[in-house]
């Protein structure tokens, strides 16, 4: 007859911290494995449960904010591998849960953490990652809501985020509807299709670090104006070295959209900026017509002149200048109807879509 000795401990804990900072540390171990958990924060609740056996540890916990102004910092470690997440907001929320399942008959080795956070019309700072890849995000939302979720393991990180403006820009929908129907003069009584209201949008930044690969990168994005905007973000780290991260914005609004920009940089690459350039528009009286251009037969001389200008701008060997001239003459038998309808009196609108995605293959990362 065999006797099987079972030593089992079941532990449960919970805290609710409102208006005061709380700090909690836990550790469990057996002869094979050890794990620990650390939590700091305010305005949150938290609960955990652990089943500890000589050959296994099964642990799970979770927490969530209970006030719009809240913060937490959490880490979960198993046999030296750490995952962590944190959030701080003045008008938002967070929730997280972690789990460890190690040992047992099937020799499990699970460490995972998932964290959600969001902000509505306020600021949010988040950080999450593991020993090999760390992400920080900062969001400042003006009449804008943003929510993100991160899923973490000891060798993987993935996150997605999405946000949009909370309320429509007054008059924008009417403006677009009138354009679609060809009505280019606003009707003040029925369709206030003019720009009014308060600027809204989001200022967003993401920074990633790959301490093992000694690489880092960041993207800063900003859209602020009388615009209805959306923001999507993405990170993925896997295979111990490879990672990608990116951000995308799109929207439509009354012109000019006051601030619309994105800048990014990663180790080894120069700063990339959007918009990619500037558009300059000017009106003037028509140029005095060049005699050469008036006389179309003078184009060979014009070609020589333009070729000299090009050679002056770029020294070195040039190709021969290639050119052509096409002329088409015909008769029109009757005058045609010319009617100039009034120009559009609607306020101008702008649409935009921009994004950046960085990818690192990890070829040079130390193993």
């Amino acid at each position, binding site marked *: 007859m065999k006797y099987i000795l079972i030593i089992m401990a079941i532990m449960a804990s919970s805290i609710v911290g409102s208006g005061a900072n709380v700090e909690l540390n836990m550790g469990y171990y057996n002869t094979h494995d050890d794990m620990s958990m650390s939590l700091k924060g305010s305005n949150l609740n938290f609960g955990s449960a652990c089943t500890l056996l000589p050959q296994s540890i099964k642990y799970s916990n979770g927490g969530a904010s209970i006030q719009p102004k809240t913060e937490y910092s959490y880490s979960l470690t198993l046999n030296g591998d750490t995952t962590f997440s944190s959030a701080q907001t003045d008008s938002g929320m967070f929730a997280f849960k972690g789990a460890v399942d190690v040992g047992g008959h099937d020799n499990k080795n699970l460490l995972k953490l998932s964290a959600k956070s969001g902000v509505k019309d306020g600021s949010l700072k988040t950080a999450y990652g593991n020993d090999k890849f760390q992400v920080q995000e900062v969001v400042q939302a003006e009449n804008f809501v943003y929510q993100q979720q991160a899923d973490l393991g000891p060798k993987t990180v993935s996150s997605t985020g999405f946000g949009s403006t909370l309320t429509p820009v007054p008059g924008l929908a009417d403006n677009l509807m009138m354009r679609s129907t060809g009505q280019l003069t606003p009707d003040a009584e029925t369709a206030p299709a003019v720009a009014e209201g308060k600027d809204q949008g989001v200022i967003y930044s993401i920074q990633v670090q790959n301490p093992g690969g000694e690489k880092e990168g960041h993207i800063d994005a900003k859209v602020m104006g009388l615009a209805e905007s959306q923001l999507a973000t993405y990170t993925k780290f896997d295979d111990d070295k490879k990672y990608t991260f990116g951000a995308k914005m799109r929207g439509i609004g009354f012109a000019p959209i006051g601030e619309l920009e*994105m800048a*990014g940089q*990663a180790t*080894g*690459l*120069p700063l*990339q900026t959007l*918009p*990619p*350039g*500037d*558009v*300059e*528009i000017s009106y*003037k*009286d*028509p140029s005095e017509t060049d005699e050469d251009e008036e006389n*179309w037969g003078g*184009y060979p001389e014009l070609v020589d002149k333009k070729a000299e200008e*090009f050679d002056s701008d*770029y020294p*070195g*060997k040039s*190709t*021969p200048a*290639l*050119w*052509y*001239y*096409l*002329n*088409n*003459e*015909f*008769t*029109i*038998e*009757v*005058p045609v*109807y*010319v009617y*100039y*309808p*009034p*120009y*559009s009196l609607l306020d*101008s609108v*702008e*649409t*935009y*879509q*921009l*994004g*950046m*995605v*960085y*990818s*690192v*293959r990890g070829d*040079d990362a130390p193993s």
Partner: protein
Amino acid sequence: MRLALAALVFVAMLALATQASGVVETSASTSSFLVDTDSDISASRTMMESSVTTPEMNYSSNGQVDSHVLQPGGGAAIISHNIYTTARNYYGILGGGVSFSSKVTATNATSSELVMTGRSTGGVCYSQEYAMAKSETFGMGIAKVGEGGEHSFNLDGSQKTVTTRLPIPVPVMIHTDEFVNKELTVTFRQRSLEMDTPADFLQEEVNFDYRTYNNQMAYYGYDFSSFLAIEDTSCNSYMSFAHVN
């Protein structure tokens, strides 16, 4: 009875629309394509002037695309440009515009620059006589290439004009404004990209265009995409933007 009346009104409106269907459409394009296998600098400039004069309108545009990449130590480059102009009097609306596109692909590049400039002037003519109409297009391309490597440089151009004859003359209504006899200049100037470390691979593509309506800016917009790779790190960036008056 009501149905017959409605049908009559519809037919009358149709006839009016037909009378007003003065349609002149003209378009022209110039494309250049440069392949340079080994050069410290690859540059290409493409320009086009096009004009159309008919009894009811004249419209002229010119465009220039200028791009270059620096490749110290030598590198390969492909630069393609296209300029496309349109002008039309379509159902009484005088419109036109210029579309530009540039695509640069280069290895070992440390900098790249791009400037696109277009000028458009539109005006209204009126003649009750039979009139000669004319459309003209001039295109030119020139490129800077390496001293030692092989290269290929092509230039293509085309022009097309379509007119629709009207059955009878109709009264002309001209609404003039301060923009009618002005020359509009529109420039897209890409921010130059400067790199200390040569890019293993660089590809930048810009499509920029603008449209005028009664010689006033009606629309401008661009699509930009860039891919840059140095060693194991790469960046894709893109932006679409449109401004509608």
